[in-house]
């Protein structure tokens, strides 16, 4: 896998050590993320059903599978799967980016983009933006439970998932709403190309028609996920959810 021009022929090829194997890893981990964001978005929409329903759902996630699983067991399984997927996804993204840069040491003075979409050209920087967002998001709602709103770090807020959510997106914290909306735009871009790309990487687009369908899938996943997530901060800042 070293990027050098040589005159030797490779013997004993190993498919698991190829660039396509890295892409398959990226596609598989990407699909884990897509399934996760779909489920997570569905959960968030419980905020429209009020404090009781939302907190009940949060508690239910923790008691799910008891007594086969310990309290919070399902969440820990999910966290391990997601962390493993993140390592695989980012690891292969970095390896492939390094290869791509090594292959074009001298840039073109003039280069036109004819077929690529903006979303396909921003996968790498967009991915970094998503990673930064995920770090902040986990600090805010899971690890530290940072309450940026009124009431400070009191248990009435940090121990109440619904209150933590509502206080994050009050009009005084309009900038927090902007951070989330911008991140969802980045997610929409990443999913628009990522969904299509994963289907193609898995080898399911062998005709013009199936390729067109995979492109539609990219639009649908991007709009449903990013749109669905954006509803909660928007409806909170405008006081519909309170």
């Amino acid at each position, binding site marked *: *896998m*070293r*990027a*050098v*021009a*040589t*005159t*030797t*022929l*490779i013997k004993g*090829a*190993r*498919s*698991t*050590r*190829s*660039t*396509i*194997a*890295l*892409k*398959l890893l990226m596609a598989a981990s990407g699909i884990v993320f897509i399934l996760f964001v779909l489920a997570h978005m569905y959960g968030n929409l419980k905020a429209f059903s009020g404090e009781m329903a939302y907190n009940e759902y949060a508690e239910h996630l923790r008691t799910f599978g008891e007594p086969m699983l310990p309290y919070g067991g399902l969440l820990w399984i999910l966290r391990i799967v997601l962390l493993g997927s993140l390592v695989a996804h980012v690891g292969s993204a970095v390896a*492939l980016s390094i*290869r*791509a840069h*090594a*292959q*074009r*040491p*001298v*840039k*073109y*003075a*003039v*280069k*036109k*983009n*004819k*077929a*690529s979409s903006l979303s*396909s*050209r921003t*996968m790498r920087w967009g991915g970094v933006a998503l990673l930064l967002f995920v770090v902040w998001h986990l600090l805010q709602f899971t690890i530290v439970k940072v309450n940026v709103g009124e009431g400070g770090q009191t248990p009435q807020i940090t121990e109440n998932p619904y209150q933590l959510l509502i206080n994050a997106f009050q009009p005084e914290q309009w900038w927090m709403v902007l951070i989330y909306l911008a991140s969802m735009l980045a997610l929409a871009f990443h999913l628009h*190309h990522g969904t*299509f*790309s994963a289907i*193609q*990487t*898995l*080898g*399911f*687009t*062998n*005709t*013009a028609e*199936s*390729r067109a369908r995979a492109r539609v899938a990219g639009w649908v996943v991007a709009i449903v996920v990013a749109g669905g997530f954006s509803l909660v901060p928007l409806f909170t800042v405008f006081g519909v959810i309170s």
Partner: protein
Amino acid sequence: MKLTLKIWRQANASDKGALKTYELDGVSQDMSFLEMLDLLNEQLLHNDEEPVAFDSDCREGICGMCSLMINGEAHGPEVTTTCQLHMRSFKDGDTITIEPWRAASFPIVKDLIVDRSAFDRIIQNGGYISANTGSAPEANSVPAPRDKAMRAFNTATCIGCGACVAACPNGSASLFLGAKITHLGELPQGQPERYSRVQSMLAQHDHEGFGGCTNIGECASACPKEIPLDVISQLNKDLRNSMILG
């Protein structure tokens, strides 16, 4: 027509190289792009300057020798090879920037000439169907379904020009590789070596240093033979199957 040409000049593989500007008058609309460069070279020779080195052979769009990044597009603005591109695609007074294919695996030999033997080595490492010597079998005794034969024919039109690598932001040769894998894999004769072929050709592709594909699609739009993006899906599918079956 009168043109301003910005051309990459590089004396040899280790020279740093730079874009150099030339003025060229008396270009006719009926000239091919390469004939326009021939005209420039006559002018340079006349002035005791070194002519611009560029590749060409058949000049009829079938050999894949000609190359050139023309105003940021591989083989220029039309879907064809540079030898089949004509000056009627340009206007009087245009500035045209001409660069070589840019990829570490296609090292520059001189000016606009790059060494594409990395493609030869990919073909050498499995891009064929092994046949026993002896009397040739009756051609019609191995039936090939029409759709598969058509797909094999269409992908066999790849001339190995390298435009796909040149246009790809990752410098991937996936379209070239996918064209070969699809061409041989659609035919009955290609089945026995199907999975070892994809593994060894891909290993050679990676060993040469070509990048991984991000399914961006610049390659297919640059291809003078209109090889479609679905050959890369086929390549991925064959590799995936080879992991399990090969």
